[in-house]
């Protein structure tokens, strides 16, 4: 699939999102459910802010020493008979993965949820080989059945669908004949997926955290599907972004807890899996061959820049669950598999501004995301940083805006000019204050403003006049 989804322009996507009444209802409900649960489980800890500080420190320390911890991780995986491959970009990662699958002559592949495999378009690469790739996360499976509908949320990928839509998809694609009751739907999915688990020759997973000190890959799920995908197939391939490292199990403990609480408001999810190397003598299950693909795909370019903190992300989606913009436009409006505030920050970093230049502006900078982030990424500041780069380096800001900002700065740093502007403002404003029939009046931004709202009608004197009169009176008395 790649990072970019669809070819619609930004405002076309937004329009679709805003008019999708069902999706919006689903998002509002999901936001309040997830955010409510998160608040409860984080408040329980008593000192949530201290935990955030600690988690930020862990992530910062790891990124500062990423080469060291990656080396350590690789060494430990290799020591235990695993294979590690560093992929600089999506193509390299897919080449390596398909080469293993070819070698194994595998046809059936089972996957657990992984954003990075979406990012590199791995499924498509394997499907081109003629493989049958099955997503085993329930949400991802639903999307896959529904003609590869893209995810709209990084934790709850099918958030934009309701149970009736899911029932219809099951009916159409898998001859499902029961109700839209979530239990029945889940039972059906379980049965169907069981066959795929049993027939898969290769299991592919993502990685929530990789523990450097032991060469362990850890996976966090509620459905247990990652365990099935890593115990039944003979070959396991884990694909991870290069920043997904933690130094030791101690930090893993902390970050897993932060992830579960922030993502779904659980102390821990039902399954936390730690996988170290392949099957050993005496083990009754587990893969015979274990590969880890560490993906760069633009990440190392972010290291050492003002955007480095974006790599602290543990993909919990807490920022998405509080975002008032996401709330109204939904995930697909971002045009990226990474939606919401972290998506608006990360997508242009990984794919450039060309296709994503609106994303940094699709925020009021309300900072709800920054406040929610368990690893304290200053998301709203990074959005401003993007705007700065767009203005200063990419040359992508419009001529009109440049002119307006230069004019603004000149006026705002020259009180003489500013006063001319400001004393003429009230009469100017009253002439455009009321747009008629929803059609705004006035030039440029004023029209945009009055498209949907009135401007305050300046009645009575201005403050400066009042103040001057008062001073005069005081001088006289």
């Amino acid at each position, binding site marked *: 699939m790649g990072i970019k989804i669809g070819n619609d322009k930004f405002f076309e996507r937004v329009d679709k999102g805003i008019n999708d009444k069902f999706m919006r209802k689903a998002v509002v409900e999901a936001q309040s459910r997830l955010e409510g649960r998160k608040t409860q489980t984080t408040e329980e800890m008593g000192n949530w802010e201290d935990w955030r500080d600690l988690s930020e420190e862990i992530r910062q320390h790891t990124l500062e020493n990423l080469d060291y911890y990656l080396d350590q991780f690789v060494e430990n995986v290799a020591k235990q008979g695993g294979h590690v491959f560093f992929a600089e970009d999506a193509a390299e990662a897919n080449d390596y993965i398909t080469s293993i699958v070819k070698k194994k002559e595998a046809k059936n592949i089972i996957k657990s949820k992984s954003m990075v495999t979406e990012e590199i378009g791995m499924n498509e690469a394997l499907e081109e080989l003629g493989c049958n790739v099955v997503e085993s996360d329930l949400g991802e499976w639903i999307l896959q059945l529904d003609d590869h509908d893209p995810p709209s949320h990084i934790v709850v990928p099918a958030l934009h669908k309701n149970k009736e839509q899911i029932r219809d998809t099951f009916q159409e694609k898998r001859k499902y004949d029961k109700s839209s009751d979530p239990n029945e739907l889940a039972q059906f999915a379980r049965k169907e997926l069981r066959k795929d688990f049993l027939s898969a020759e290769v299991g592919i997973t993502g990685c929530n955290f990789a523990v450097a000190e032991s060469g362990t890959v850890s996976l966090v799920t509620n459905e247990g599907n990652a365990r099935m995908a890593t115990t039944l197939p003979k070959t396991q391939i884990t694909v991870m972004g290069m920043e997904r490292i933690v130094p030791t199990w101690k930090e893993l403990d902390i970050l897993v807890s932060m992830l579960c609480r922030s993502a779904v408001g659980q102390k821990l999810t039902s399954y936390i899996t730690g996988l170290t190397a392949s099957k050993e003598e005496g083990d009754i299950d587990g893969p015979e061959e274990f590969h880890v693909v560490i993906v760069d795909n633009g990440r190392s370019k972010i290291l050492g820049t003002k955007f480095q903190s974006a790599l602290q992300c543990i993909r919990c989606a807490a920022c998405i669950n509080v975002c008032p913009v996401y709330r109204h436009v939904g995930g697909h409006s971002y045009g990226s598999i990474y939606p919401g505030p972290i998506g608006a920050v990360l997508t242009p970093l990984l794919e450039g501004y060309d296709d994503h230049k609106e994303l940094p502006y699709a925020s009021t900078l309300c900072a*709800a995301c920054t406040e929610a982030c368990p690893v304290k990424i200053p998301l709203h500041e990074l959005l401003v940083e993007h705007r700065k780069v767009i203005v200063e380096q990419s040359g992508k800001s419009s001529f009109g805006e440049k002119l307006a900002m230069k004019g603004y700065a000149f006026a705002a740093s020259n*009180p003489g000019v500013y006063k001319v502007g400001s004393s003429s403002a009230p009469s100017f404003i009253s002439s455009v204050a009321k747009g008629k029939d929803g059609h705004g009046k006035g030039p440029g931004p004023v029209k945009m403003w009055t498209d949907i709202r009135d401007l305050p009608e300046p009645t009575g004197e201005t403050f400066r006049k009042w103040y001057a009169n008062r001073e005069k009176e005081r001088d006289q008395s």
Partner: protein
Amino acid sequence: MNVSLFLTCLADVVYPAAVGKSTVEILERLGCEVDFPKKQTCCGQPAFNSGFHRESRDVAKHMIKTFEEAEYVVSPSGSCVAMLKEYPHLFEDDTDWQDRAEELANKSFELTQFIVDVLKVEDVGAELNANVTYHTSCHMTRLLGVKEAPMKLLENVKGLHFTELPNKQQCCGFGGTFSVKMVPISEQMVNEKVQHIEETDADILIGSDLGCLMNIGGRIERQGKPVKVMHIAEVLNSRAEVKTWE
């Protein structure tokens, strides 16, 4: 105590005198000497938030000079004070200006924050008979970290019947240039805000930032709803016999 008023460009240019006048009168009643440095302009946020940081540095320098002599700088806007506190980051490569920016940042306060935290007053003797609700502005609560002060002051205003705004933490969709760049999204956000305000049955929506009030109030007007918006300074300056909104 000597206080220099930073009025903010919206209160200076777009709104009539009420907000600034109320701010001056409240502070004077509490024993402050208030002056209004006439050279003041805008905090620079429009340029800063749009990524025009070089331009916002020019504005910041002007503001730093304008308020250099002030003992305290007080402003009826959480958002603009948060911007003043951002100034030191604008001069990371210029220690001289950074020190001056730091000085301004340290002596700047939002109005309710100043009354409660510096003057240590929680009852300003205001009275207003009305059903009200309050919009917590994002920048004031999250960037400046002022959450309690306006509530403490409002609690002591006689006659107020207060109902909490549902989803009060949610942004109203203003966001400065966002409100004109992303109109369709902003519209949805402000619609939801107006809907929540209506759910409270309040006659007056109180807020501490004119940006948000201009956005919400403008939408309310356009929809022809019977709710008024009022800046918290006007509320705190209300007295039984004095009518507001004239």
